[in-house]
């Protein structure tokens, strides 16, 4: 590759056919799995196909899918964030606190996004400029945020939320708003990752950071921006999480960060960086909700949900390694 090539930051999206299958194969597999699961379970119990149940499957993990969009960008760029669950908890509490204390509703919705951007830009800066591994920085953040949240709230929940604040309960054309958020944001980011210069930059950094540097990409600045974007999605996910019910817990769901990371990885985002799409992570989040619902319909213990998720991770990572091996 010639260093004088000025178009390197915006390469033509031409792909070898095998690579195209490799890049999008996971999405097709996930889509097929969702459809197959729905068919099999509705054969056993036709009520599974009821409009309410299908809506529940798509809306159930929507906030996880939104968080997984940001997580996918972080993982594609070659990093990881294990603090996202705690961050969502903190941002949800901030949002709810603003809403019940009479601040304008739009502020309660936007503040978590803005704070998410700021916090994660800081995290990104520590990782990029001080060269601390992302797992270390975000593990630290995990403890700080979780401890801080319990200290500040004292375990008290936020109740008496105003009705017009509960954005996750809004519906458009009969479809709950979290589904709209999930679908529109996934489509926008997928398009942007595919065709924008910065989108390709993220793949380049994750694929081979030294090559990206040689090609003139500002790796540090880009890393900070990726984490800032991830913070914005954590903020949106936090608002959806906070407004789904009429109270906000002072604790986040156990292992939320793992669920988000699992969605990204099972969605085909390589844990080694450089490949994957946000369409995959969103489909994986929907698949998890479909599995959870299926287990109840089939009278299978919910313990299997964790076993199945674990199995999916192993299978995906093995398939990813096999694919890399074959394409080399």
């Amino acid at each position, binding site marked *: 590759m010639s260093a004088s090539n000025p178009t390197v930051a915006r390469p033509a999206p031409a792909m070898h056919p095998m690579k195209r299958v490799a890049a999008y194969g996971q999405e097709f597999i996930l889509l097929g799995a969702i459809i197959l699961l729905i068919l099999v379970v509705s054969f056993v119990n036709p009520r599974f196909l009821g409009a309410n149940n299908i809506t*529940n499957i798509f809306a159930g993990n929507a906030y996880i899918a939104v968080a997984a969009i940001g997580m996918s960008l972080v993982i594609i760029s070659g990093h990881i964030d294990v603090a996202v669950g705690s961050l969502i908890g903190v941002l949800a509490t901030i949002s709810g606190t603003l809403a019940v204390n009479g601040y304008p509703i739009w502020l309660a919705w936007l503040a978590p996004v803005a704070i998410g951007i700021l916090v994660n830009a800081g995290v990104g800066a520590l990782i990029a400029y001080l060269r601390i591994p992302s797992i270390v920085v975000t593990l630290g953040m995990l403890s700080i945020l979780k401890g801080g949240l319990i200290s500040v709230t004292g375990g008290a929940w936020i109740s008496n939320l105003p009705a017009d604040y509960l954005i996750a309960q809004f519906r458009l054309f009969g479809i709950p708003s979290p589904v709209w958020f999930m679908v529109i944001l996934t489509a926008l980011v997928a398009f942007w990752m595919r065709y924008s210069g910065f989108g390709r930059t993220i793949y380049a950094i994750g694929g081979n950071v030294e090559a990206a540097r040689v090609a003139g990409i500002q790796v540090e600045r880009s890393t900070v921006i990726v984490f800032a974007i991830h913070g914005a999605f954590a903020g949106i996910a936090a608002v959806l999480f906070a407004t789904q019910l009429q109270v906000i817990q002072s604790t986040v769901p156990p292992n939320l960060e793992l669920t988000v990371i699992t969605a990204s990885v099972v969605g085909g985002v390589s844990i080694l960086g450089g490949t994957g799409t946000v369409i995959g992570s969103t489909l994986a989040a929907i698949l998890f909700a479909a599995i959870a619902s299926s287990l109840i319909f089939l*009278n299978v213990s919910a313990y299997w949900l964790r076993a199945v998720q674990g199995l999916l991770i192993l299978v995906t990572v093995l398939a990813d390694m096999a694919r890399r091996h074959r394409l080399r």
Partner: protein
Amino acid sequence: MLKRTILLALGLSLGASGAALAGSWTGGDDLPTNPLACDGTPGKAEAKPYDGGVPTNAPDRKGKPIKVVDVPKLIGIGYFNATSKGIADAAKELGNVDAKTDGPTQANIDQQISFIDNYITSGVDGILFAANDPVAIAPVLKKALAAGINVVGYDANSEPDARQWFVNQAEFNGIAKALVDNMAKEVGEDASFAIVTSTFTTPNQARWIAEMEAYQAKCHPNMKWLETVEAQEDNVLSFNQATTLINKHGDDLKGIFGMTSVATPASAEAVTQAGKCGKISVVGLATPNAMKPYVEKDCVKSVVLWNPVDLGYAAMQVLRATADGDLKPGATSVKAGKLGELQVINGSEILLGAPFTFTKENIGQFDF
């Protein structure tokens, strides 16, 4: 893992419907149960010797004014504001108690210990506490006993020998009876219901479910348990699981039990959003603030917990009776003012009584 996979594939393809309906309820434990009488007669106390502590050289405080400090897990939250009010009410009624509440602003055991330590030094006659940690708090409470101070716990126990008495807000069989009775009253004696719990292995929930099964078999034999689903302590998952139950069972489902303070409001929200208010009853354990929106809209009729004002009131009455020498080791009951005669259980615990049911009429009086 391979075996599990094959099993799961089999389970999925065969559709193991009905398999879970046989046998006992899922989510209960296998420990022996002790269902209460259907008519509300209190359970008989098992004879167990006194296992509480004894203060060293406590002065004769009978009828004399005493100074009492209450150190809850933390101050400034609705729940402990309510227990504190109960303590103040009892102190005022007794007329010879100077009671105050003081404690950490965070539920922190180290801070709680230093608060208690300071009050031992400054000199009090009685200490009330709700422990942040049953083991870590024991040494400082033993120090108080050694200084001749009367020590009584409520809400969250310490090791038994570190305090004289503990006021227990609710026993498992009492909670189980209140839940099942309220459900039977709302949905009828032959209705079907399901349970949303945290996990099948969470000790308290597993105990409650086992007691509920025993009590239902004894007192409401025609009610039908459909299934128990897990939702951890996750409100969105609880909502999703409750919604799936509603979608799966359709009109067969008449009631949902919420076994945690997360699952109950989430189940109520699922019923609300499914437009099933009035068709599906939600009965469960929860705090009043989380349930107010549903109770006020008539979607939920009964929320079971205990009354923290009564809990604080009982703790103060027990402390006074202990200081007066009216409540001695080996006693089987104690007079607690307006609450009447309270039972001694498990050696050195006082049972507050039947759990409290929050309804539309009374829920507005509580803020926690």
